[in-house]
């Protein structure tokens, strides 16, 4: 589960980069929204990785 979370995180990074490539500087709202979505995906990946760590520790989920 930890590995799954860590694999999701680069996807969030590439989403953020895609925002820069796909949206022109004249559309900062769309760019910013996409970058934030990328960060949200990374945050989800981190949460999954942390939950994987907690399961390994024998603790209850978040």
């Amino acid at each position, binding site marked *: 589960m930890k590995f799954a979370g*860590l694999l999701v995180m680069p996807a969030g990074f590439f989403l953020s980069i895609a925002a820069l490539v796909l949206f022109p500087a004249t559309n900062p709202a769309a760019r910013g929204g996409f*970058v934030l979505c990328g960060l949200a995906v990374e945050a989800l990946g981190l949460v999954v990785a942390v939950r994987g760590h907690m399961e390994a520790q024998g603790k209850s989920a978040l």
Partner: protein
Amino acid sequence: MMAGSPPVLTETTVVLVLVALLLAPLAIAGLALVNAGLGRSRSAAQSLLGSLALVAVAAIVFALVGATFAGTSGGASHAFSLAGKPWNWLGAGPAFLSGLNSAPARAQLEVLFEFLAVALAALIPWGSGADRLRLAAGCAVAAVMAAIAFPLLVHWTWGGGWLAQLGVNFSLGAGFVDPAGAATVHVLGGLSALVVVWIAGPRKGKFPQGGFATAMPGHNAIYILFGCLLALAGWLAFNVAGALLWVHAPLSALPGAAIDTLLSASGALAATFVITRVRFGKPDASLCANGWLAGLVASSATAAVVSPIAALFVGIVAGILTPLLVEVLELAVSIDDPSGAITVHAAGGLWGLIAAGIFSGQAGQFLAQLVGIAALLGLMLPLVYLLCWLLNRVVPFRVESDGERIGMDLHELGGGAYPEFVIHRDDSYR
């Protein structure tokens, strides 16, 4: 390809940066003391010897491998083209620092800054692995950081890489701004600390089955608090030198950068002091030390970029976040981080980078900072985890159970830091 050339430094600036960098090792000394103080007495000598060894390993590996990939601003680099934009991703400096003595003063100062920065970064995960991370494993982690992760990040941020070029290529302010290593040193070090803690696991008895986390307080508050004072001197030096080297601040901006640093640390300490006083009835020395350090870490991103009042605000927020996050990580997420490095360096650094975007007042800067953070979390954390996971197969991170019981000093060094003291039994081993 060659990146755009940075401004040439005047002789006065060269002397000023050099003097500042000669004081910067105080930050390393301070952090080493804090790490030793927050660990147990039976691991204190291993902690400090480890700090020396890690600095040495990081410096040697960076000289042999990392410096080539990190490069210097305006130096040779590797880049590819995507969507009509250049993506400068790796430095192509001379191998083994050849020709450094005859290089321009700026290039030599940049390399010196990077040496000190990698030494500081290497110490961060060492503190988190206190009391169970083997010395050989700590050195191996330092070597991997100095050879791969740190040079990549340094090139992207300071060496004219794609993060630094976000302003030119995508109209995002001045590009990703990291004046004194909030990202390259502290967030990278903090994320490495998280990885080390994940792989090494908690100290024995820290999280008993069906019970609350056991409190394992640091063994020497004097080391911790004096380390914080030493760190202030080192951070002032790092922030002043970084302002001149990496954001090309004028000499007139340097007193402001130093004031920002002090205000950020002061605000953070005051906030942590008040919060721990309210929550526990008395201020907590080790959490206050963590708050102070978190303020300093945040200042690494904001000094010379924001106003003094903004720096104070940044510090206060860092000081509020620190004790709360330390508690969440320990009690809710079962992460045993004796030095609090994940909170102090990773979270403090991330907050500083965000604040630099908020308070810089430049259009697009906030987005540039977010893209930098996305690279740190989305690329660096998985990369460091992968490297450390592989490393753990070769050099096991965690000491044997018996070594943890008798202490790292006796197990790894054959003698303790306090041979005349009576070693008390630890309740967690009953």
